């Protein structure tokens, strides 16, 4: 009973936070007006009196909510996947270098090759980064936790350095946009940026959802997964590819938002248990909820927009320290 309540709560949380986020903003709009405006917009009814409210809700708040929900879900889905296939609760897209790779792809597209689509560049370099990390960690045979994390740090640093080179080379006008975007923010969201990212992230989350149960067997280690009938190389390829697509698209619209892919799967695992059949959908939902929440804070805490990446990193650091201290706790299995 209690368990069902928890599951229900997590499932509902993105919608609850979305409502809070719609209500809470610099411009006060009454709940009743919100309902009326959105209802009439959705069913194409004419409502003459709500021009300002409509544009604030429809053009500013709603796109940000949808986008932050998608990015949160994508990052936490990718985190769940990476923790599963690398059987390591301490990794996420940020630590394994996927985010830095994607960031480099985006910066490259912004700075030098504007004709190359930014999402594609982010995906390609996030994929390159994840595979380099994987191969580097694998060169020692069975992947050890330490090697994996160290390889991730190395690859992450490498791509950050490449981004720095680009920052150094581009003209100051572009530099500002790259720097601000790297901090991670949804402040530039509008409907046009949602559609591309939306498609990419959904395309990534579908295989993650469909194949999620196999993460259980994959997380038992290479040899055991094989003996259970899993073609380990092929499955890892599919999972890493999908996770890279999710992270690439997320980074391309919102910059680097760290720690979500680590924190959310962890917290969700504590609440719903380690079985990926449940863990994946609920960590997608919890990721969406968390990101909407963090972005609402980013929008409203001060009179200007703080990059949401700063908020997630600030909350992620103490969380990571807590995990390290907890060490041999339950969700570590050891």
């Amino acid at each position, binding site marked *: 009973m209690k368990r069902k309540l928890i599951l229900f709560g997590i499932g509902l949380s993105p919608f609850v936070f979305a409502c809070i986020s719609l209500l809470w903003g610099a411009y006060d709009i009454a709940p009743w007006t919100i309902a009326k405006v959105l209802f009439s917009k959705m069913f194409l009814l004419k409502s003459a009196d709500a021009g300002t409210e409509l544009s604030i809700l429809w053009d500013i708040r709603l796109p940000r909510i949808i986008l932050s929900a998608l990015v949160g879900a994508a990052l936490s889905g990718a985190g769940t996947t990476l923790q599963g296939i690398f059987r390591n609760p301490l990794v996420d897209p940020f630590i394994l270098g996927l985010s830095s790779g994607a960031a480099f792809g985006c910066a490259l597209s912004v700075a030098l090759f504007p004709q190359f689509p930014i999402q594609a560049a982010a995906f390609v370099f996030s994929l390159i980064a994840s595979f380099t990390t994987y191969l580097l960690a694998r060169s020692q045979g069975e992947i050890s936790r330490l090697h994996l994390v160290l390889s991730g740090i190395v690859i992450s640093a490498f791509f950050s350095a490449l981004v720095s080179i680009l920052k150094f080379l581009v003209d100051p006008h572009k530099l500002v946009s790259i720097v601000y975007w790297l901090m991670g923010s949804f402040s530039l969201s509008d409907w046009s940026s949602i559609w591309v990212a939306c498609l990419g992230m959904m395309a990534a989350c579908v295989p993650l959802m469909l194949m999620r149960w196999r993460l259980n067997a994959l997380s*038992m280690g290479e040899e055991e997964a094989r003996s259970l009938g899993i073609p380990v190389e092929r499955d890892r390829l599919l999972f890493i590819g999908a996770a890279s697509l999710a992270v690439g698209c997320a980074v391309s619209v919102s910059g680097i938002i760290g720690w979500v892919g680590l924190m959310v799967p962890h917290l969700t695992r504590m609440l719903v248990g380690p*079985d990926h059949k449940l863990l994946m959908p609920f960590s997608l939902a919890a990721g969406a909820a968390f990101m909407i929440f963090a972005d609402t804070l980013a929008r409203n805490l001060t009179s200007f927009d703080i990059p949401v990446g700063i908020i997630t990193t600030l909350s992620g650091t103490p969380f990571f320290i807590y995990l390290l201290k907890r060490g041999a706790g339950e969700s570590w299995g050891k």
Partner: protein
Amino acid sequence: MIEVRELTFLHRGAKEPVLRGIDFQAKEGEVTAILGPNGSGKTTLFQCLLGIWKFQEGEVRLAGKPLSHLKRTEIAKNLSVVPQEHDPPFPYSCLDIVLMGRTAHVGIFSTPSGRDRDLSRRAMKTLGVDHLAERPYTQISGGERQMVLISRCLAQDAPAMLLDEPTAHLDFRNQITILKKVKDIVRQKGLIALMNLHDPNMALLFSDRVLLLNRGELVAQGRPGEVITRESLLEVYGLEVEFVAENGYRVICPKL
């Protein structure tokens, strides 16, 4: 039936083969024990049977089909494994662990069905561990873990089962319980069981056939009583032993 013919395997770049001309059959309803000192190639042999290592010469047939023609899922449908060291990274429930045995039967884009759950629960019942279904696998004892893993093999529904040192890390009582259970199930269900053992006494008590490995070669095979002798143990382990017989049991005792 598992048929192994003239199997030779060497690691890439190595000069000495790890396994040389291994030739045997393991039959339904029989427990075949593999004995041999550390480094004699027991685990490597298992890995060759599973297709994890590709052997250079010889042939392995599972239920008449050559291993080299079988895909991962097909191998898993023919051969299940009780692995040696076992520490999952996440605290899966025991039922989750047993359900993993259904991986080869569940589609890539699918999750286990009600039937898969039923089969898994029934397998746990057969081993007498159904009460552990909801407990985290990380919190049960070593003996219970082996029982859960053997239930997973049953859930995998393969005619043959490989057990890699199933009694390592177990106390005396649990060693006996596990091996007895394996023998019973193999008889009942007509399974093929192939297991690595360290203790020749256990092989005498619980196996129907014994393969004696030494430095990658099969030095003897046959009924336990014929293979495990003073001479063969001296040759393979370099140890002087005495046989003590009482109440119809023959027990090996090292000379001190």
